[in-house]
């Protein structure tokens, strides 16, 4: 199965954030491995129908997190990256985004049971991945 990312250009979340989040999800799940070349900025921008700068911004974000090596003329290469221990800033950032998501879920009427099941499934998958690693 091809690793596919999906974004919604009508969503309030900026497109570069959606792209970075979608690629990161593949990276942490191991569907895209170290050493693999990601599509060039121009190719991904064409495929998603967004401006080149939007994809470049997403790649820079992931490079800043240590996931990608952005060599000039070579595109983006996935790096082997050990998961660091969460810094207090990262933990705080995560809490804030989780809070924002919970507010969206409440505003849109997503049942609490569904949120709980989804979060538990995600946590179980993360634990399983850590055991495999």
């Amino acid at each position, binding site marked *: 199965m091809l690793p*596919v990312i999906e974004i919604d250009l009508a969503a309030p979340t900026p497109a570069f954030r959606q792209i970075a989040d979608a690629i990161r999800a593949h990276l942490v799940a191991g569907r895209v491995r170290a050493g693999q070349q990601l599509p060039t900025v121009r190719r991904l921008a064409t495929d*998603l129908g967004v401006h080149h700068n939007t994809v470049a911004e997403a790649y820079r974000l992931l490079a800043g997190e240590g996931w990608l090596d952005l060599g000039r003329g070579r595109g983006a290469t996935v790096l082997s990256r050990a998961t660091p221990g969460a810094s207090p800033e990262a933990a705080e950032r995560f809490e804030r985004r989780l809070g924002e998501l919970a507010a969206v879920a409440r505003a849109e009427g997503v049942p609490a049971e569904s949120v709980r099941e989804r979060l538990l499934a995600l946590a179980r998958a993360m634990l399983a991945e850590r055991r495999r690693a």
Partner: protein
Amino acid sequence: MREVGIWVVGLQGLAVLQVGAAYLLAPRAAGGGAWFGVPVAPGFAATAEGGRIAGGYRRAVVGWTLASLVALAALALLAADAWPGLAAAGLVTLAQVGGCTAAWSAAHRASLPHAVPTPGSMIRRASLGPVTGALRPAMDLVGFLILGAAALYLWSRWDQLPERFPVHWGPSGPDRWGTRRPADVFGPLGFGAGMVAMMVALRWVLAWQLPAGATPRAQATRRLGLDALQGTGWFIAGLTAVGALTPLAGGPEVVIVGAGVGMLVLLVASVVALVRLSALPPDPPGPPPPAGALRWGGLLYANPEDPALWVPKGAGLGYTVNLGHPRGKLTLALLVGLPIALSLGLAWLTS
């Protein structure tokens, strides 16, 4: 020269069959949740209403195709020895395309009440894997090699070329002559090389601009479009080469038989490609376009809010230009204008 006229009308018949096959196979090849450009529930095709819409569409396409073939047969019998008859044969093919497109629009309208709501309005998918169906530059050389081989053959047989030979035929026989000089002998090959170069350029520009596709079906559709352009380039090269060899190899019959063989190969190749496309797993249903984004009965898409130049087609097969994009109108004008300019150039050269 009546036989030549009959053969020309026969070639139009092959084109009519090709158009009919493409329209019959298009709904199946589109796949996914798109049903005549309308997102419908899975299994809708198997319902009574789905069967009624598809049956009506099939009957209309088959009807237009058969009517066009009958009209062409009548023209071949009654008017193949005059230019108006041959021109009318071209109009028959145009009428068939118009009729089949109208049948598609009617099926689209009949399907609209069965549309299901789909999430989002501008969802885009992209694969992180390598692009399949990459351009094969060596294959682009084939057309030029065919023309080069013909030029080499003519040059090696220069002494056997007649001093004066026909270069154009009308319904009453040859009506334009050339002499044994490089411009007349190699001129058609040069024009063919220009046409092939334009096809190659168009293919490369489209390969550069078109989304690579996020699913096997989308990638195969892209590959099919690019391969069709390549096949057309080879066809033009082969036909031009055969035409340039007529001073040595015979009259217009050779060109007509060559065109017939080429068109048959293209017909079989396109039917095989569409059938193979139909067998691929269906794509997830695409989101409906935002309200007001569709123009001309759903044939065109214009949405200034959408940053994409190329957007997935409502029919689910391939991409279309977003006319709301700053470069949308220019891109569409080039896509429509280039083939028209090529046809006019060819008509001017052979008139």
